[in-house]
């Protein structure tokens, strides 16, 4: 009875969506009710309905899009530059043990340092400019991909390499058929973490030193006490985070369809 099965699947899918949105919905509804009933100061906690209206206005005027665009632009630039360099570094470290031993203390030290504390130093080196702002999240991406790229190379099952050799695969074929696909899941773990970090750090840097982006928008809103814009900035940042997570999951599923799905989730 394929029809019935389809129906069941639909029901569980709808149910999952319902559960997925229920907690935020309850929270927003409570907030709305409290604000409307004047239990909380609407100046500090403007009701979500007003936030939505303001968001629509900001979106229509292009203001919101410009800020999101600026943040996204920095995030993607930092993510691409940092991740690619980091991945290359990780793979090379995986191939040469001595290099890993030489670089490990350095990587561990920088990894453990809160990256924002490096912004002043990077500004001393690069100048007070866009390069320094992007360098902070890029550095974080570099470290994450170096670590996960290295792990990916080192954790390849020796058995698979032996099998490939036994069946006469050439070096190039082994790279394409064994090393690269084997590394994909681990590398993707690094990529997911790196993109999240890039977003967080870009917004943090914007709060401290920038005249554009969501971070700047949030901080300016705080200083001018425009609480509506403050909340809209935070919600936009959260939405960006979720969207990137979903996008990267989809991409991974496309690139590594053989990988057993982890936890079943709505995203």
């Amino acid at each position, binding site marked *: 009875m394929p029809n019935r099965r389809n129906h069941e699947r639909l029901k569980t899918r709808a149910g999952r969506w319902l559960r997925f949105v229920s907690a935020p919905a309850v929270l927003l509804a409570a907030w709305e009710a409290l604000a409307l009933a004047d239990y909380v100061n609407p100046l500090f906690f403007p009701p979500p309905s007003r936030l939505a209206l303001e968001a629509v206005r900001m979106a229509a005027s292009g203001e919101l899009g410009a800020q999101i665009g600026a943040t996204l632009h920095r995030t993607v630039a930092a993510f691409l530059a940092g991740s690619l360099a980091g991945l290359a570094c990780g793979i090379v470290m995986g191939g040469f043990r001595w290099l890993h031993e030489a670089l490990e203390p350095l990587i561990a030290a920088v990894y453990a340092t809160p990256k924002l504390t490096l912004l002043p130093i990077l500004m001393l080196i690069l100048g007070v400019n866009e390069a320094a702002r992007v360098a902070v999240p890029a550095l974080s991406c570099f470290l994450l991909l170096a670590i996960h790229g290295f792990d990916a190379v080192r954790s390849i099952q020796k058995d698979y390499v032996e099998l*490939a050799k036994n*069946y006469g*695969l050439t070096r190039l074929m082994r790279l394409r058929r064994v090393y690269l*696909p084997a590394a994909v899941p681990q590398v993707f773990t690094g990529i997911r973490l790196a993109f999240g970090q890039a977003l967080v750090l870009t917004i943090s840097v914007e709060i401290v030193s920038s005249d554009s982006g969501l971070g700047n928008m949030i901080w300016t809103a705080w200083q001018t006490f425009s609480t509506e814009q403050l909340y809209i900035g935070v919600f936009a940042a959260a939405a960006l985070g979720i969207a990137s997570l979903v996008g990267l999951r989809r991409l991974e599923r496309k690139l590594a369809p053989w990988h057993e799905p982890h936890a079943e989730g709505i995203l």
Partner: protein
Amino acid sequence: MRLTCSNLSVSFGRRNCPIPALRNVSFTVGEGEFVAVIGPSGCGKTTLLRCLAGLERVHSGKVSYECGGGDRPPRILMVFQEHGVLPWLTVLENAALGLEAQGVPKRAREERARRLLARLGLGGRERAYPHQLSLGMKQRVAVARSFLCAPDVLLMDEPFAALDAQTRLKLQHELLALWQERRCNVVFVTHDVDEAILLSDRIIVLSAAPGTVTGEYSVGLPRPREAGMMLSQAFTSLKSALYAQLGFEGSQTCRTAEIMKG
């Protein structure tokens, strides 16, 4: 093709404190012969196969292959016990991997792989990934890959050990049928006495570590073999001889048990 293994010794561990794994192992496998190697677990069966495949460094002794004419290097292929299929390749790609390495064009190799897979009951599953298959299906894919390469020597490392009894019996039959058609030398390592008798022409018994050859038995059963033969007189008497050789008898078992406790 004739495979000769003479005075093979291998040890692991550090140089000043080596742990011997194999000691003076000698045997031959004749043209188109199916040889089973049995022995207690940890006796170096897998190490022996890895030496034959050239995956392990041989410390002393020699493994040699005499080709009957033709100057291409002999094709010595392993069927692994675990990790025998690549998880990121589909069933079809896995089965055709050896042909791909030999430079067979995509269309031709996929056609050949498809035909053999269909015969092994995997028709319609060509696009599946290994994690969607049962253990038995995975081993069928591994067997298909090895036979597609037309090996000179097939080295099988307990390929059916992890399967349930019925699946194992099925795969044993499929293996025999394939081998019957495309004769090649087989060295089949197992710890299962029934399996060794049912499949092979000759059985080599290894002792506990360090493995040495303690006996050789030829199996007189006619081919093609059937599961029904497992009840025959010839089968059961060979089986009891092998059990005796392996030390599952009276005082011998007790002594082994004591040694294990100590």
